[in-house]
């Protein structure tokens, strides 16, 4: 993505050069404008190159080596596809982390979107003080990825945490949720779902775009609330749902901070929170297998790319773009 955007101005620039040659080189030609453009772009370009593109390409190279972080880069040996082979054939922790990540995304993402849509529908009314509620519901996403929030979460769901205190009111004895292998990942899912603010705001914006005359027409035709929701709101909202789905799926797959904090950087208990990115981090920085970790990162990138492509290819069956048809 980033690379194509970097390329497109240059294509225009080179076309410009050809045009200027025909016009007998005016002094302030498009070429100079192009140069000025690049100078203005340079803060971003340098960032892209230095912080993203070059390290990314380097990691592609490293994924074919046995680079171990501690030894100098020059001493890393070329191992061909060995890292990739090991991932698919002889590393149980790899598949464990794939399972954890996929089950996290499969459960947390739909529930998060449902929560976001539900609350957005409630907040799409002209109540007094609805703005305040919008702000409050959005708040958790603002601090979403933070370590501080993860620490708060861990303390809420450990044995003496607030959640168990709440359960105790009803005489239910809780458990140390974050330390129980069958509940730790669920705790993370709840944390992710709770941060539904960002997709909620997007849903709200989408709801405002739905023309009111459609609802009026529907109610004239005798459609009830539910029917209106199914036949008007959902189809009209489908581009926004699609957008949120793609974005949140990618986010869900990349979950790291909360899992790292909750498991004390181990992915435990019993690997129950060993998210893919956490496993990658452990391989690279704890076990000194940066070559292998780089290979994991590239497979991850490919996998997310494929999933996104699948979404896009199914999109035309259920995403309804109204613009152009009826205007």
């Amino acid at each position, binding site marked *: 993505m980033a690379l194509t955007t970097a390329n497109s101005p*240059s294509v225009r620039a*080179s076309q410009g050069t050809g045009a200027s040659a025909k016009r007998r080189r005016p002094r302030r030609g498009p070429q100079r404008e192009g140069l000025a453009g690049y100078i203005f772009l340079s803060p971003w370009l340098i960032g892209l190159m*230095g912080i993203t593109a070059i390290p990314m390409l380097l990691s592609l190279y490293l994924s074919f080596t046995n680079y171990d*972080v501690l030894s100098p880069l020059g001493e890393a040996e070329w191992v061909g596809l060995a890292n990739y082979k090991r991932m698919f054939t002889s590393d149980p922790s790899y598949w464990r982390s794939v399972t954890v990540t996929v089950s996290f995304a499969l459960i947390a993402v739909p529930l998060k979107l449902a929560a976001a849509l539900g609350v957005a529908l409630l907040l799409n009314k002209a109540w007094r003080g609805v703005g305040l509620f919008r702000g409050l519901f959005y708040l958790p996403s603002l601090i979403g990825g933070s370590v501080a929030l993860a620490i708060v979460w861990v303390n809420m769901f450990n044995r003496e945490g607030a959640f168990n205190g709440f359960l105790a009111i009803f005489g239910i004895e809780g458990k140390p949720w974050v*330390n129980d292998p069958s509940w730790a990942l669920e705790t993370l899912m709840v944390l992710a779902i709770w941060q539904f603010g960002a997709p909620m705001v997007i849903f709200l914006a989408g709801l405002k775009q739905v023309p009111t005359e459609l609802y009026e027409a529907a109610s004239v035709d005798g459609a009830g609330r539910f029917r209106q929701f199914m036949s008007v709101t959902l189809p009209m909202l489908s581009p926004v749902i699609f957008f949120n789905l793609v974005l949140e799926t990618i986010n869900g797959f990349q979950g790291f901070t909360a899992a790292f904090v909750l498991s004390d950087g181990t992915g435990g208990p*019993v*690997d129950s929170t060993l998210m893919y990115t956490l496993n990658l981090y452990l391989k690279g920085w704890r*076990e000194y*297998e940066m070559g292998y970790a780089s290979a994991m990162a590239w497979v991850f990138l490919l996998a997310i790319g494929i999933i996104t492509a699948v979404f896009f290819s199914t999109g035309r069956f259920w995403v309804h773009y109204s613009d152009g048809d009826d205007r």
Partner: protein
Amino acid sequence: MRLTIGVVTALAVLLGGAACSDDTDPAASGDGKVELNVYWWGGDKRAEVTEQALKLYTQRNPNVTFKTHWQGNQGYYDNLATQAAGPDAPDLFQIDDNYLTEYAERNVTLDLNPYVDSGALDLSKLPDSLAKYGQVGGRTMGVAGAENTPAMVYNKTLVQKLGVAEPKVGMSYAELVTWARDITNRTDGEVAGTMDPSADYKALWLWLRAQGKELYNGPELGFTADDLTAWYDIWQNARATGSAPPLSVIKEANGGDVTKQAVATGKAATSFMWSNQLPELQRATKDQLALVAYPGNPKGQWARASMYWSVFRGSRHAEVAVDVIDFLVNDTDAGKILGTERGLSPNTEVRKVLSQSLTDATTRATIEFENSITPKFGPAPAPPPKGHVKVRALLVAAAESVQQGKATPRQAAEDLIRQANAALATT
């Protein structure tokens, strides 16, 4: 298109140039002044005494100043690895035996043998096994900053209140489990008699050594699936009879915060710790805690470095760094400042001086424990090999799968042997 390539190339050159240009080192100015980077993990107390000791060194050697960095235990090695990859590791840093071989064999640490030979670094006052435990393949890769011993901490108040005998040095694990069941029963299951250390590599190691076996033989595993099955069986049985707590309590205790250990929170009557952690645990509970050796023959124990000082191979001031180590280890005044914060002073003479001036009861209990068990030590093994960090993580996962009931002791042991062998072979 051509222009893009040009821009990219120019940027790459520019960035490359920028990366190379900070090679000039402000510390290496011509007037003989040296600034040494020192890095360790620990708490406030450790920072306070270490900085004080380093200040004393500066007083005596005004040309040498220090830039210190410290942080908590968590994430320390992530940070150290990042700096070493730089390669911009601190001149002098703290490291423990879990990582010593890893760093030594990847040539991050400097071989200190030449300095020992030249007399610049005096290790003659260290117990022999302690000095040897800093060697990797015959090269001195670290100097023990302090000596420490694994110790079982138990709740003395509770044990006396229940009228149970106190655990003794040399009791077997079978005896411990029976003893623990008694406590569980007498407290109606409120308190588990003993913490379950089956995931703790050092408990496993000492258990193996008490039977004349080892955790590692050189770069390979020193035990078999049968050994490990027997070890898991002990704890399977302990959990089944209520002597040891369930997995969630175990995980809670091992979360990384020492004060959350089961013996401090009252969830169990024992915790498997290091002797120098007693003061910290004691502060977390009103009950009186006491130390005893891990079960099994104490000859399985050895004079173990709680942590080492190592010098970065790329340090420009290696001689100065070595001299600082010599000062921290051998100087009596430095020893007095450092006290027992990292464990017992590695230098036996400093130890003697120190033990006369101690006032704090808990610290004295630690020293008394160390002194009483030291004569029973066996010979030191080699520090764990490269790949140990992985094996350690695998051991935790294997033990947890048994604790959770996902695998039988036999299955978990056989899986572990296979995975650990693979892990050791790939490093």
